[in-house]
């Protein structure tokens, strides 16, 4: 923790509208409490890091709760090489990138429709999308599983010749399911764009598609940044859909493949820790780099409805 304390104070303070009157009080007790809680919250993660850095022979000999005799990245290279992680990471990319782009495009279109035009069914449409995202995935899974077994795909799309067992199927359900949340957020965002902007474009005779692509979409860039961050992490992290809808292990993304590896390496917690941490690295990088976007995506969606 101490290495992080060197941040400039302007960075750690929340921007507030009102300056505190007088000198700030000493907050030692509060810092002890909050620091203790924060540290406690990090313990499971730090324990996983510690375990993953120790060779199996070291822990087997001295026990897990012991001082290290050697530390190294051996478990990480082993997990990377032995369990085909590069392949599963690539599967995750192939699923996450199209899913995020598709979700944003679809929900931007629906949000544009319901927020810029006063059609009678707008509220119903918006509710249909929002409620769809709130349904528990398990409510959909039985018929979806059977549906995917019935839908044929050409061979160039899926070698199973079905929507089942193909990345396309996973992308499709991600887009359909996540559109609800993003539509909700984007429609709230688009409502804050003054109507005069699009009305001016209409008076100028600009067709609606140009309004959408050239005026509204560029103005929504901050909302897109927030949602793209949030959705990338969510979709990358999801492992229920592939678990139910992809049968063969080698087509699964990293998170559900990880669940598969459990049986394989059950006896080696060091290796499992390394694999789990490597799976978490992309989300942690995105989170640390784009923390502001991530949190604003989460809160404009749920906090300020």
């Amino acid at each position, binding site marked *: 923790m101490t290495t992080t304390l060197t941040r400039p104070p302007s960075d750690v303070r929340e921007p507030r509208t009102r300056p505190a009157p007088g000198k700030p009080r000493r907050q030692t007790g509060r810092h002890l409490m909050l620091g203790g809680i924060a540290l406690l*919250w990090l313990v499971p993660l730090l324990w996983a890091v510690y375990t993953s850095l120790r060779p199996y022979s070291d822990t087997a000999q001295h026990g897990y709760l012991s001082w290290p005799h050697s530390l190294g990245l051996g478990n990480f290279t082993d997990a990377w090489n032995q369990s085909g992680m590069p392949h599963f990471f690539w599967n995750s990319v192939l699923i996450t990138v199209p899913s995020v782009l598709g979700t944003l495009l679809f929900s931007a279109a629906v949000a544009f429709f319901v927020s810029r035009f006063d059609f009678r069914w707008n509220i119903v449409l918006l509710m249909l999308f929002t409620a769809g995202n709130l349904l528990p995935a398990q409510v959909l899974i039985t018929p979806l599983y059977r549906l995917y077994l019935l839908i044929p795909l050409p061979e160039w799309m899926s070698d199973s010749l079905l929507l089942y067992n193909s990345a396309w199927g996973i992308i499709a359900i991600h887009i359909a399911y996540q559109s609800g949340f993003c539509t909700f957020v984007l429609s709230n965002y688009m409502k804050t764009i003054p109507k005069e902007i699009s009305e001016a474009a209409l008076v100028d005779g600009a067709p*609606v598609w140009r309004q959408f692509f050239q005026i509204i979409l560029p103005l929504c860039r901050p909302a897109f940044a927030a949602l793209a961050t949030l959705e990338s992490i969510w979709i990358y992290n999801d492992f229920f859909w592939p*678990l139910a809808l992809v049968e063969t292990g080698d087509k699964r993304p990293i998170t559900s493949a990880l669940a598969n590896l459990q049986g394989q390496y059950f006896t080696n917690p060091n290796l499992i*820790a390394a694999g789990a941490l490597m799976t978490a690295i992309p989300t942690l990088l995105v989170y640390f780099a784009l923390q502001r976007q991530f949190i604003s995506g989460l809160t404009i969606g749920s906090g300020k409805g």
Partner: protein
Amino acid sequence: MSSAPLAPKSSRTRSRARRLTAGDRVFLAVVIGIPLAALLFFVWLPALASLGLSFTTWDGIDLADIHWTGFDNYQQIFGNYPPFWPAVRHNVIWLLFTALLPTPFGIFLAYQLDRKIRFTRIYQTAIFLPMVLSLAVVGFIWEIIYNPDTGLLNGILNAAGPGHHIDWLGNPDLNLWAVLVASGWRHTGYIMILYLAGLKGFDPALKEAAALDGANGRQTFLRVVFPALKPVNVIILVVTVMESLRAFDIVYVLGGGVGSKPGMELLSLLITDNIIGESSHIGYGSALAVVLLLVSLAAIGTFLVQTFRKEDQ
């Protein structure tokens, strides 16, 4: 489906709607039509199909083999399916635990962090961090802690006094609580971030007024801040209920990845038990899904009413 609702509402919009050319209408029909079709086909059709299939028996192979059986499946799961009531009880325990411990704790942390103190962002980052991890990863991290032979928890207990060999995830009296701790670890940060966003929108003058009236921190929160944040409270309630109903991944991973395990049955796991692998229980799985759906609809309805009430006026 998209040309029908083109009737405009007010005279102001009528003049605008008339300006829509045929090309504009086609464009609008496409932008709403394709996402709507995807939503209806991949989300709402399966949801309704679950409802329909819950009144039938089906082996899951040939569509012609679907037979109507009325409420048989429901009678079976209520009366004759041993894991059902334990699963309901566990879902209720899950909800009560989450609503009574991690949720208030997250609110408490948000209230503590929503002030001008140093390092507040560092504290927030640490406590919110578990929320960024996949539940699969969270499951493995806690497995390394709970493992009866090699885990941190038994290691600490044995260092304090030897002879402990507690199978945290295997003992049916303990494993649900072990999983709940892991789940609460994640949920606290989520609630904290949501509540912090709500507190940012809170008028600090109200807090000052309460302080001038001599209210202490606890009174200010309970009497002034908490009641004023009703919309956020509703969101947090809905999030807590939905997360408790949806709980699946973390139990699945900590249960060893083989479906439900004694002591950790949940409705969501029973549904997947009945559709993956075994093909003859689709009716069961669907009836369980409908039970889950009906309970969720109460939460979804609350959320929609809260959210759309102001727009409906």
